[in-house]
């Protein structure tokens, strides 16, 4: 009963409700602007809400978080520039839709599906948090490494043209991710003895450059053409559309919750994995993937919003942050005199239920703001290109600077912008580069941890893979996906089932 009161607290206090609304609204815009991140917003809110009570402060942060994760999809769809890393996959099919004048439909689906995913995440948080966190803790370095390897296989899904070029791009991404001083040993890697290389290359700077600046440079080719007319007649997707994608969205939401709950992986990886999953399981997409498939929007958007609820699971049950934003919230709880940790749920279950309530409200506000502001947003694409292009460039520059207050990041951003422009012209996919950068640390750090834990002995390392059921399952998944993506599988299939089975190949 008391828990119910805590859960309902948000609904009975208009000022708290108001703060969640304001937070969500601000979050949508923070998320939409590349370079402004929820992490930044949340850490500013710490000093801003310092003198407040803890509940209003959390209400605002929860709203920003939920809105921000969703907001990244806006610019991804409208401008082909993901506002946040978790929206990279959204651009793959969202932008082609906007190019057909279906930005309204795309945003409508994105919003509804984000709501759905967010809701699944909250549900799991509310009902199964202790079990999920226990499961998440079971992940050993070798399991994280296997997860990273699984992630690397996504290169196949993200490279529409030549797979070889995709592999080259993905490997380049991993190399970019390891530039600078190695955080584990402080050894210099790819620094060429230049001090400016030591801090490494900001992943956000690479993303903004490759998607923002290179897109703006490409648009210069079409500067004379009129903007695409967007028809925004039907925004809320029909019930049958939603029902049709229900099985897929449940699967991708589950991916989102689990990847979100793992400390060390977040919404960005979840969204990419979900996109890959959708490509694998969808037999007949509404359109081919990469040309405006609805499934290509459903998957990443359910997953990244489900990851929000997921990220709260280890935070609320163990005091372990699920991602950067929950890390800041843990700091906020400390400042407000609470002690986030395993005892929080035991000693102050109300705090848990309050956050669940706030998340539910933030999810609803996200739906409302998402479905109402579309006209204004689509005006952005309707802006004359001669105005839009320089503004994208300027925003990219400020955004890259804002990530770490570093002018070096601006140079990197510009460099990767020009490089990305050339890559696009010659058919090298950009998605795998970003994927590589995201997965670089996960792969590298955990590989080394796993090997060091086994005293550098490969035999013991492989023994370990089979001693834990979790590792074994992950290893089997890695092998299954590897085999199914390479010609070996086709060969076995023809051998076993004869020629007819070829038609079943995706």
């Amino acid at each position, binding site marked *: 009963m008391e828990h119910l009161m805590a859960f309902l607290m948000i609904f009975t206090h208009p000022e708290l409700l108001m703060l969640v609304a304001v937070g969500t609204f601000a979050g949508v815009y923070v998320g939409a602007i590349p370079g402004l991140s929820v*992490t*930044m917003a*949340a*850490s*500013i809110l*710490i*000093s*801003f809400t*310092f*003198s407040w009570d803890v509940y209003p402060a959390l209400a605002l942060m929860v709203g920003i978080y939920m809105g921000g994760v969703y907001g990244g999809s806006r610019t991804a769809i409208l401008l082909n520039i993901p506002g946040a890393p978790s929206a990279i996959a959204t651009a793959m099919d969202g932008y082609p839709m906007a190019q057909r004048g279906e930005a309204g439909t795309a945003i409508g689906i994105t919003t509804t599906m984000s709501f759905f995913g967010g809701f699944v995440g909250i549900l799991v948080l509310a009902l199964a948090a202790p079990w999920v966190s226990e499961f998440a*803790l*079971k*992940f*050993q*370095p070798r399991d994280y490494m296997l997860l990273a390897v699984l992630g690397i296989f996504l290169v196949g899904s993200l490279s529409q043209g030549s797979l070889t070029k995709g592999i080259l791009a993905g490997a380049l991404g991993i190399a970019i991710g390891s530039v*600078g*001083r190695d*955080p*584990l*040993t*402080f050894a210099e890697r790819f620094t060429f003895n230049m001090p400016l290389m*030591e*801090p*490494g290359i900001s992943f956000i700077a690479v993303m903004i450059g490759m998607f923002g600046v290179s897109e703006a440079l490409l648009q210069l080719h079409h500067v004379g053409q009129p903007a695409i007319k967007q028809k925004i007649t039907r925004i809320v997707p029909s019930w049958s559309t939603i029902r049709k994608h229900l099985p897929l969205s449940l699967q991708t939401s589950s991916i989102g919750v689990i990847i979100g709950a793992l*400390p*060390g992986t977040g919404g960005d990886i979840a969204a990419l994995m979900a996109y890959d999953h959708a490509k694998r399981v969808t037999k007949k997409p509404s359109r081919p993937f990469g040309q405006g498939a609805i499934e290509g929007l459903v998957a990443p958007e359910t997953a990244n919003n489900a990851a929000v609820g997921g990220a709260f699971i*280890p935070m609320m049950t*163990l*005091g*372990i*942050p699920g991602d*950067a934003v929950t*890390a*800041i919230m*843990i*700091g906020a709880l*400390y*400042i407000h*005199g609470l*002690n*986030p*940790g*395993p*005892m*929080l749920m*035991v000693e102050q279950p109300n705090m848990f239920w309050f956050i669940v309530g706030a998340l539910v409200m933030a999810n609803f506000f996200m739906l409302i703001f998402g479905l109402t502001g579309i006209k204004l947003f689509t005006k952005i694409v309707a802006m004359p290109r001669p105005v839009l292009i320089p503004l994208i460039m300027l925003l990219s520059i400020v955004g890259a600077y804002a990530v*770490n*207050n*570093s002018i070096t990041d601006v140079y990197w951003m510009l460099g990767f912008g020009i490089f990305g422009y050339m890559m696009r012209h010659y058919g090298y996919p950009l998605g795998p580069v970003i994927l590589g950068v995201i997965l670089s*640390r996960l792969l590298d*750090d955990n590989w*080394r*941890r796993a090997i*060091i*834990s086994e*005293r550098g002995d490969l035999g013991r390392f492989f023994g370990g893979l089979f001693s834990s059921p979790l590792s074994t399952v992950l290893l089997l998944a890695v092998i299954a996906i590897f085999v199914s993506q390479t010609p070996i599988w086709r060969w076995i299939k023809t051998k076993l089932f004869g020629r007819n089975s070829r038609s079943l190949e995706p």
Partner: protein
Amino acid sequence: MKRVLIGAVAALALGTGAALADGYPSKEIQGVIQWGAGGSTDTVMRSVTPHAEKTLGGTVVMQNMTGGVGAIALNSVASKPADGYTLLMGAENPLLYKVMGLGQKDYSDFTPVDILARGTAVLVARPGVPFDDYKSMIAYIKAHPDEVRFGATGPGGLPSVVTAMMDSVEGKLPVISVPYDGDGPALTALQGGAIDVMPAVLGAALESIRAGKMKPLAVFEEKPNPLLPKVPAVVSFNEDYAKYLPWGPFFGVFVKKGTPEDIVTKLSDAYKAGAESPDFQKLMDGRGYTIMNISGPEAEDFLSKWQSNTTWLLQDAGLTKASPEKFGIPKPGN
């Protein structure tokens, strides 16, 4: 309407710093935090600064600047004019940059405004390990060489210093050192069983210890910590530790050397008052930090002692890139 809104937003975002008619601060002050958002340095700085602002009568805009174990932030502040408008909000790491080959500058290029607080190191183990205190752990490690996995956070981090202390007191311990990029991820790994023992700062492990998710083996103090009265001090197991203690990571606010003295005094007074506020004291006590709140020669003295102790300890453990001698850091006790 729009203009009123923007004005309101601006006013909210800027806070309502009272205006000072004369002199410093005549504009907003930039506070560069050496570590990322959500980290312990970040939390400490963001909670003390609003209190300091009240006394200072100005606004401090805080920014996180990460990378190079904090060296990026330090070098950035060092490149700004010494006018008191750029503060460095940092931890202990810069005192090790020179010997670790991470940079040419350290706190000797800065004037301490206030050393706010010091942390306590604690040795924790996952619940499943076959030892319950420091003594039985040492015995177990010696009986089972290369089996116990210790968490580490890179050369110069707290675990490396604590491990160096243990090596120097107990003789080289045969353990596997598994590197993590911070004590948060390492403590998570400890709870998941990926590592067995982790030297950590008390504040980071406290709640998990209370919940029984981690086993405390010893606190690295001369006396038990009031927050964990039952956990023995490491000195009670081996008195040789006394020569290194008290030791702990610390947080401080700094300005570039050459900043006018009255400005440093004004800042010191402000942060001193900030650190005395009950809110901040409660936060620090609750997380197991010892408030120091020192400035001036006292702080300078603390820094040079800390540096000489720690760098020579690491030097003797063979963990440094260059000898402290090269940088004129005296051997402790000389």
